[in-house]
């Protein structure tokens, strides 16, 4: 088993599949009366969050607690972090506390890589800057597999602000490792340069959402921050949602079986219409529930839980 999960590129197909299979077992066990498993009793998991993300922190916290680990939440607010303590000094503190795993969320790309130099425990990337969010990709893959029965050969459209999206990067890496066919869709300003060479040769790029939808098994809508307008990535929210938003009319272009995903939080009415988000095709609520199972599997396998 790998020691850290800093990038979806840390996962080969066998390891990724093992995590998804383990997550399925975790989901089955969590469904029973006894929600706590003793697997990580006596182990310490630190949630080191430099960015506010209640949903991700709660998901990791629930995952660790269901495995009976001791959880320490170390958030940027009300700690030495806000006084400007360096990541290295914080790492040394966590090291002294005997952290077995550090789950880190940080606004700087690569912060998990830096942290892994300074702690002995496992490092789990819970989102770093505009780089990656590998457990989000795992829970997305888990959701696709449970809805559609497979990942190999699946056609996935990832739509929106790919340039700034850590979810997109991790999804491209993981999905192509698992045999899916990914098409990135968005305005050219928001599709990074050399993306196929950078992430996976198998990745395709399209600027035309309507052309991609009829041949997609999965369409994943990315959050688009409206402040991108000020930076001339696109002219207005209205034009963005006309060209790249998923509304009911567009959703009808999808094949019957296709699903609609969103990593949240959503801008309803911008990249996704409310009726689409709430439709039976939408997996948005499932994604949240699957997140706990997948993160249980990641912690369990990284820490070699028994």
């Amino acid at each position, binding site marked *: 088993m790998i020691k850290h999960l800093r990038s979806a590129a840390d996962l080969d197909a066998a390891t990724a599949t093992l995590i998804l299979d383990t997550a399925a077992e975790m989901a089955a066990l969590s469904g029973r009366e006894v929600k706590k498993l003793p697997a990580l009793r006596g182990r310490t998991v630190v949630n080191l969050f430099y960015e506010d993300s209640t949903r991700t922190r709660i998901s990791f916290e629930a995952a660790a607690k269901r495995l009976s680990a001791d959880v320490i939440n170390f958030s940027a607010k009300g700690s030495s972090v806000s006084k400007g303590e*360096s990541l290295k000094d914080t790492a040394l503190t966590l090291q002294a506390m005997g952290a077995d795993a550090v789950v880190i969320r940080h606004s*700087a790309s690569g912060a998990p890589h830096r942290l892994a130099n300074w702690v002995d425990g496992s490092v789990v990337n819970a989102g770093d800057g505009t780089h*990656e969010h590998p457990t989000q990709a795992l829970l997305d893959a888990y959701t696709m597999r449970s809805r559609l029965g497979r990942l190999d050969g699946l056609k996935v459209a990832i739509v929106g602000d790919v340039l700034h999206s850590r979810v997109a*990067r991790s999804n491209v890496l993981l999905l192509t490792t698992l045999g899916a066919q990914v098409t990135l869709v968005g305005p050219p300003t928001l599709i990074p340069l050399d993306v196929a060479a950078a992430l996976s040769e198998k990745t395709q790029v399209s600027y035309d959402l309507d052309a991609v939808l009829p041949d997609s098994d999965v369409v994943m809508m990315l959050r688009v921050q409206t402040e991108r307008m000020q930076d001339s990535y696109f002219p207005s929210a209205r034009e963005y949602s006309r060209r790249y938003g998923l509304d009911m009319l567009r959703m009808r272009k999808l094949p019957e079986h296709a699903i609609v995903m969103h990593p949240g939080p959503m801008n309803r009415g911008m990249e996704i219409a409310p009726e689409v988000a709430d439709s039976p095709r939408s997996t948005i609520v499932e994604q949240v529930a699957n997140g706990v199972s997948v993160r249980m599997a990641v912690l369990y396998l990284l820490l070699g839980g028994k």
Partner: protein
Amino acid sequence: MAYLLKGVSILGAEPTDLFIKDGVISSDKAGKDAEVIDASGLVALPGLVDVHTHLREPGREDAETVETGSRAAALGGYTAVCAMANTSPVADTAGVVEQVWRLGREAGLVDVQPIGAVTVGLAGKQMAELGAMATSAANVRIFSDDGFCVADPKLMRRALEYVKAFDGVIAQHAEEPRLTEGAQMHEGEVSTRLGLTGWPAVAEEAIIARDVLLAEHVGSRLHVCHVSTAGSVEVLRQAKARGVRVTAEVTPHHLLLTDELAAGYDPVFKVNPPLRTRSDVEALRQALLDGIIDVVATDHAPHAVQDKECEWAYARPGMLGLETALPIVLSVFGEQWDLIADRMSIAPARIAGLAGHGGDLTKAGTPANLTLVDPKARWVVDPGGLASRSRNTPYAGLTLPGRIVATFLRGEATVLDGKAVK
């Protein structure tokens, strides 16, 4: 002190004896009281000249001082360095440039030639008193806002014109600031993978293209700092073919390293302009050979530990360079001594207007600014073993060819047996 360098090879030529007396190369071989140095196997080069050094004093003496930087320079074979203006306070007045110049004289290890800021506080708004700096004791000839680009085209035009009165030159840090907002590394495949904001090659090329046209229009001298892209080389090639008075430098790190090194997010590889691609490296090497790029300049940029031991985005850009420059150039180009002497000593001395440097060592009466290199020696770069006060070398653990055995500044040894004399 007089020296007799026995069996030395001047620029790779047949071994000969070189006599140094009264601060110059002497034809008198019969000096009895001269200290004899066995220089067999050693190559004599004119003392290296760096047109782009950050010495950090005043302001960041925890990272480097004029003295520690001078020592690093002498150990790297340098006899003159041009100290960049982005200190605190900024070297934008006669007072500050004279202070740096005086500190250099006191250290006495290399000639420290201050560079003056183009604009007050490097703010890019108002021209600094360039004339006052030029006529100060520091005798400033190169002006640069390095660290920042003189982005305003009108201000750049005026600065280019204004310094003609005292044969000055504007050294431009070519970076269109609107195209590099938040930039962290070269924009391309690797930045896409790493999720780091890209610094596009065109941000450099667009400024160089603009500035060669401005220099041509007003008939002034332009020097381009740290050229880093293949596209910039093409712009310079065309400008030089038209006869524009432009010179350009390349750093040792841009001749060797590529953006792939950012993959581990270790900020020791963070530098501005950023490390580029393999094809850029190849183009820069060819440009230096062709003379499209005139000089190798270190952009020696010391940084305190805490400014590098952090997240990539928070780290300051820059790398040490003085003690590794010649070995890197040797490793890239081999023992092409005439090329090395020209690009690292003669041409930079000419650009900086440093008359006593880059002289002909075969001629009696040439100021004895020279360095002795053992080209066969190999050494492993140990950050802790460097003379700089900082440790941010990107070459840690690398085995490099070429050891500086001795350096002489106006006939006085600054380095002997590979050690600084003070």
